[in-house]
């Protein structure tokens, strides 16, 4: 065979192997189910027969496609299912371990076949599967058959055992069984219910980091974040990048260890120090040669430097002076380890610029507490430099730094990024009339609400004065409006004490999205500031998208609410107004028809239409509007009764865009209205 033909065969084989893996993973799933059924004593003859067959086929297929170990394990499982319904517990236990080893082996990337002399790759790969360290489990809950094997391979390369669930039911089973650390979720699996089901089942254990893989923009990001999703990933990224992005996000959420550079010519002492800090959040880098300190400083960028005094080449005190003289390291805390602690030595230690010293031979806990005290001071100082004193939020400088990081992340992961600018209504007046203490407590309270509501990849900061900014990762402008609007009510519920009276305070906010509204933080901020000013002039107490203008035209409205229940209509209009949407209410079907079709007609982008109306009922009105071509430029959302399937059907047939059953939740209806407005 020519080399070219061999290469072609090799390529073809790899493509087929990838497809085979999908089939084989499904077989493993079937075997898993059957083993579980055996464990629970509910395996019937049919399932046993089918499992036996799956094991048999897996044995043939896995071996052919370069997984000899899996082939061998499958044969064992085949014999296990051959033995009939009565199995002894030890064997059952063995079967579960084979199954696990099988999953690990099949998740392993296929080693190059040429790498081994043995054509089946047996010698190269045998038994490695069971010995490899497993860092955790990853669950892909997504129907994409192409993605599954690639992602599982990519996960394996990072020490994660991958599991694939094509549907929610399967996902829940796998979730219970493997307690994955990371879950990648298809948006079609509803983020509310599905996610609760998935995460709720982990019980007292830690919730897995859950990411939604999006391809379209129809995902309700706000609801997903509320339901506890960690973040969003673009499904168009290659599997390897996808996994890197997920793992990076998970890593960012972990507390960062403090870094200490320890320099001593005695390797035993360094070992003892490393031992002392083992298992803590302090990471010790040990250097025995004083001349390598500069290189080590550059490489580790430590939070603290620990120096022995007596070392050949350069003493600790000399090193300390050199560090202090270098502008890059002048502020780095230095701790000296010294054998003698006479008054002269103590003075020379501080003269050299060290922050503290520890006498040798030291007592373990003393060194630990001295180091920790220093590190604590570093954190405190850093906090003072980076956080706003009044609100505890990050300051503007820090906000800029963190926004730049989010911006780079958003570009790399193809995710949207928005900022919300929040401004307390009438704060200047409140300060003037009631003193700054009152104004400060209002700002603090709003900061609390913000800090509680945003976490993870979001950044909340104080820009200046009364302006608070939240950077929302993975959020489009409208998602941002919905998230900030949700805070509006919470903030209003807070009561402030003023001259013995309880008062509530409102805020106005504008949301701008990176890209459409500006290419950096400052442009976004400018866009948002202008819009907040407009919102305040229009009465304040509302959350709007940048560019929002109050509607001055009496014959145009964003949302027309046709509903005879005033309380319900009021609630809705309030929610709409607070999101920067103009609205009107009409109570009578006949009047609505007249206003929408007559001379000087009222034009609405979206109509929320109740079914039961005086004059003309909702369904008839809908048909009439359809006949008069009103629906060409207006979308109708029907408010139907929960059990009224016939109603829903006839509404949709008559041209309704959507329907929502009563009683409804306002956020849900707002989401649907937004969708109708977008289209």
């Amino acid at each position: 065979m020519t080399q070219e033909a061999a290469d072609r065969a090799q390529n073809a084989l790899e493509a087929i192997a990838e497809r085979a893996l999908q089939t084989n993973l499904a077989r493993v799933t079937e075997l898993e189910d059957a083993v579980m059924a055996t464990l629970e004593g509910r395996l019937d003859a049919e399932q046993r027969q089918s499992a036996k067959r799956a094991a048999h086929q897996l044995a043939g297929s896995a071996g052919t496609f370069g997984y000899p170990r899996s082939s061998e394990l499958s044969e064992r499982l085949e014999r296990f299912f051959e033995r009939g319904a009565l199995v002894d517990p030890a064997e059952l236990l063995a079967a579960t371990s084979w199954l696990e080893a099988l999953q690990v082996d099949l998740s392993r990337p296929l080693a190059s076949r040429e790498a081994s002399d043995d054509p089946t790759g047996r010698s190269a790969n045998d038994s490695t599967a069971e010995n490899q360290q497993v860092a955790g489990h990853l669950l892909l809950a997504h129907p994409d058959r192409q993605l599954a094997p690639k992602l599982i391979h990519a996960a394996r390369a990072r020490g994660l055992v991958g599991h694939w669930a094509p549907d929610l039911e399967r996902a829940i089973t796998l979730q219970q069984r493997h307690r994955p650390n990371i879950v990648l979720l298809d948006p079609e699996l509803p983020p509310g219910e599905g996610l609760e089901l998935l995460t709720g089942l982990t019980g007292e254990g830690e919730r897995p980091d859950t990411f939604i893989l999006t391809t379209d923009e129809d995902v309700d990001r706000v609801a997903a974040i509320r339901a506890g999703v960690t973040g969003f990933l673009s499904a168009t990224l290659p599997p390897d990048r996808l996994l890197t992005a997920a793992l990076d996000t998970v890593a960012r959420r972990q507390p960062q260890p403090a870094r200490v550079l320890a320099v001593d010519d005695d390797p035993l002492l360094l070992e003892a120090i490393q031992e002392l800090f083992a298992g803590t959040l302090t990471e010790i880098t040990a250097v025995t040669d004083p001349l390598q300190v500069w290189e080590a400083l550059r490489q580790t960028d430590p939070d603290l430097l620990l120096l022995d005094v007596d070392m050949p080449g350069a003493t600790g005190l000399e090193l300390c002076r050199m560090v202090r003289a270098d502008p890059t390291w002048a502020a780095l805390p230095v701790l000296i380890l010294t054998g003698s602690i006479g008054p002269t030595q103590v003075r020379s230690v501080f003269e050299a610029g060290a922050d503290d010293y520890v006498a040798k031979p030291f007592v373990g806990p003393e060194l630990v507490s001295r180091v920790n005290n220093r590190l604590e001071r570093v954190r405190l100082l850093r906090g003072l430099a980076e956080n706003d004193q009044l609100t505890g939020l990050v300051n503007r400088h820090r906000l800029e730094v963190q926004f730049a990081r989010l911006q780079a992340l958003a570009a790399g992961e193809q995710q949207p990024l928005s900022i919300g600018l929040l401004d307390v209504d009438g704060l200047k007046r409140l300060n003037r009339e009631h003193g700054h203490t009152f104004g400060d407590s209002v700002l603090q309270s709003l900061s609390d609400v913000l800090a509680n509501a945003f976490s993870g990849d979001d950044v909340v900061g104080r820009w200046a004065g009364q302006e608070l900014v939240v950077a929302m990762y993975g959020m489009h402008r409208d998602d941002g409006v919905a998230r900030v609007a949700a805070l509006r009510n919470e903030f209003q519920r807070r009561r402030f004490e003023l001259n013995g009276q309880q008062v509530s305070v409102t805020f106005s906010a504008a949301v701008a999205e990176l890209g459409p509204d500006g290419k950096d933080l400052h442009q976004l901020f400018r866009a948002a500031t202008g819009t907040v000013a407009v919102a305040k002039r229009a009465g304040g107490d509302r959350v709007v998208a940048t560019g929002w203008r109050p509607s001055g035209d009496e014959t145009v409205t964003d949302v027309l609410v046709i509903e005879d229940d005033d309380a319900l209509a009021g609630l809705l209009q309030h929610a709409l107004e607070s999101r920067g949407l103009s609205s009107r209410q009409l109570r009578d079907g006949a009047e609505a028809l007249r206003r929408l079709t007559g001379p000087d007609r009222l034009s609405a982008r979206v109509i929320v239409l109740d079914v039961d109306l005086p004059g003309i009922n909702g369904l008839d009105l809908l048909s009439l509007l359809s006949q008069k071509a009103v629906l060409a430029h207006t979308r109708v959302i029907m408010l139907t009764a929960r059990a009224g399937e016939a109603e829903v059907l006839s509404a949709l047939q008559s041209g309704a865009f959507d329907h929502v059953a009563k009683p409804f939740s306002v956020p849900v209806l707002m989401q649907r209205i937004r969708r109708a407005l977008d289209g």
Partner: protein
Amino acid sequence: MTSRRVLVVDDDDSIREVAQMALELVGGWQVTTAACGAEGWAKAREHQPDAILMDVMMPGMDGPTTFSHMQDDPETREIPVILLTAKVQAGDRREFADLELAGVIAKPFDPMTLSNEVAELLGWQG
């Protein structure tokens, strides 16, 4: 010399595909496939291949049963059949020995050497 024609009968899509690829690219033969025993028998009658590679365990009609039907059928009786099996235990070997098979190839097989194995069993020269 005209190219050899081989029929592969296996219900596992990927195995069928890999066997076809191996026999076409490595062996240089013309390959037809079938996904079950009944289809295999029908295609054997229609195409009259030079040899048949057939999986043992298939839903519906399994490999040995299909083989015995083909032995009873004058149109397919002369076509040599090689069974593909993941089972190579002594008992099964004996069972297969009673059949007039051209050979048995164990699964898993190595795709790169499959055509050689087939040629060897059938005494085909390159």
